[in-house]
């Protein structure tokens, strides 16, 4: 029954060709396929430096069947602003300009450009697929890396010492029409958010949790399950914010303990029981803070998840 509904809710499409270059188990191509099928062929993709620079395919090939402009690390939102302006002067108001970029290009080096575009309320859709470190260069910490995680620049003896930056709150504080979290592990929720964003004008931001088996040190077949565990344990709640004011939790979260989520990943293997308890406390505090500003209202019926 629910299988049938998923097929109905996920649009068909061939805008992502086979033959992309993602690592086994990478969630980003699944997310790209879902997003492109929802947005359709009238879409231009801006691709700053990120894993997808490689995944999309080297010249003269491209696994994306829509126009792509590859650009330097910090420039996604600015290049998209220029493309948007040029399209508008040509009367092409209905073409979607999609910025597709990782956590480093969003949380760190691209944040100024993103803030500028959001402040100007540029008519663009920005998707950050967040695998929680600089994975393309070989797993170095970013400001999206969670507290306690191992990366090659935060060795197990001295793991990540900062909390993950709250990018959704930062973007919501720009009072943009739409900001949301999502993950390809809940495709129906993700598609619903893409469709909702597509119908709006102005800056729309989707923060996507995108598991990375080599970086998270998990099996190739475990990524999506881990992403679901991240949601259900409230590590990565499913939320949307309209106009920076109206916060909504978009699905039920079981509130599972975080420990099984952490223990399944090599990047957290070194954590002591005390450290796990600390993480659990932080998650609970953040969830309570979210509860204070959000209403619970599933975007799609629970049966369709």
């Amino acid at each position, binding site marked *: 029954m629910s299988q049938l509904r998923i097929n109905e809710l996920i649009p068909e499409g061939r805008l992502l060709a086979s033959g992309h270059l993602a690592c086994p188990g990478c969630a980003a191509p699944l997310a790209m396929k879902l997003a492109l099928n929802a947005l359709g062929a009238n879409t231009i993709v801006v691709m700053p430096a990120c894993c997808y620079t*490689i995944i999309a395919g*080297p010249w003269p090939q491209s696994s994306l069947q829509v126009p792509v*402009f590859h650009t330097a690390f910090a420039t996604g939102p*600015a290049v998209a602003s*220029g493309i948007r302006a040029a*399209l*508008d002067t040509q009367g092409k108001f209905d073409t979607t300009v999609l910025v597709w970029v990782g956590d480093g290009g969003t949380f760190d080096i691209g944040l100024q450009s993103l803030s500028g575009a959001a402040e100007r309320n540029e008519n663009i859709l920005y998707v950050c697929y967040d695998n929680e470190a600089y994975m393309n260069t070989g797993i170095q910490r970013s400001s999206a890396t969670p507290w306690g995680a191992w990366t090659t620049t935060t060795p197990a003896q001295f793991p990540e010492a900062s909390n993950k930056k709250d990018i959704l709150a930062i973007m919501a504080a720009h009072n943009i029409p739409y900001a949301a979290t999502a993950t390809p592990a809940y495709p129906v929720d993700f598609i619903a958010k893409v469709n909702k964003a597509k119908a709006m004008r102005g800056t729309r931001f989707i923060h996507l949790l995108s598991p990375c088996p080599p970086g998270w040190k998990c099996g190739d077949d475990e990524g999506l399950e881990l992403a679901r565990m991240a949601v259900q344990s409230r590590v990565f709640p499913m939320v949307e914010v309209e106009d920076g004011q109206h916060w909504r939790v978009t699905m039920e979260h079981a509130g599972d303990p975080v420990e099984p989520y952490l223990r399944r990943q090599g990047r957290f293997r070194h954590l002591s029981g005390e450290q796990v308890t600390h993480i659990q406390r932080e998650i609970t505090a953040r969830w309570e803070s979210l509860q204070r500003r959000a209403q619970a209202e599933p975007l799609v019926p629970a049966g369709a998840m």
Partner: protein
Amino acid sequence: MKKVMVGNHAVAWGVRLARVEVISAYPITPQTQVVEKLSEMCADGTLPARFIKVESEHSAMAAVIGASATGVRAFTASSSHGLLYMHEMLHWAGGARLPIVMVDVNRAVGAPWNIWTDQNDSLSQRDTGWVQLYCETNQEVVDTTIMAFKLAETLDVPVMLMLDGFYLSHTAEPVDVPDQEMVDRFLPKRAASYKLDVESPHAFGALVKPDAYMEMRFLQQEALQQVPQTLAAIEKDWQRMFGRSYGALEAYRADDAELLLVTSGTVTSTARAVVDARRAAGERVGLLKMKMFRPFPTALLRDALRGVPRVAVLDRNISPGHGGIFAEELRSALYDIPDAERPELFGFVLGLGGRDITPAVIDEVIEKTRAGVVPSREDLWVGVNP
């Protein structure tokens, strides 16, 4: 139509007449009046362009890159640290072969802070794949801004034009504003060879491996090498329609000169007056103005300087640890002229950070060149207090 205007407004008029479609810029002294005037023109509808007021120069260049890749005519302007902040994206525009035109109002770079003119900002961008043209007058600024788009769009190369901070940017001069209908005939709407288009999807700038990257650089080099002859053809049209032209190089009273000054930017005008005075006194002193620095007009320079006994190069810039940049590149361009015809070249570093280059300073350059003063460093510093 004649109007009196400062150099920065001459830039804005050029942009307006070229019917630029997307502008993105960030304010910086002494470029600020360019963005102010363009904002006014966009607001009152005399320039129906989209002006994206970005949060940094890095984003300004990124935005015009996006616009240009989508097939429209795009423009930006900056100075000094703003230009340096664009550096990464200047390379991207050059490599992507996007016909963007930008203006750099030449200003010194820090540390320490200095807002006055020299050429170190633009010359430090010489390897980014942009054409570089240095202007002397506000008339030349208007005309060159328009011609720059024609040049850029003919060869798919970005063009940067320079005017000296304050000496030109904030100095009012009479300018004959070209007629819009004639400009439209000279420069029709851009017809992009390649663009982002959902009807014909392509990926731009994807990873290119060692088997093809070099070929792309070779094609870029070939395009840049065509700039001198292409600009000459464009200037011929301009001359025919508007009665003015400038040249990549301009020789002024250079026939039979025993000593030739090589200049760029506004110091050229001062040097013209000095040359006039020397010629009136019967001295064989002339001038060669270098408008084009990139591509380096090697063949034209060899022709212009072959057989001239002594050449004095005035550099309002310094490559620290080496010397004046025009002089260094000229030495290399003249190297394979046979000894008997190769000029003796003297390099002078002067006017840094907005220090005046007066007729007296140029007289000193002439006397030192005549005396054959061999510099203790690569080039002689003039007007510096040791």
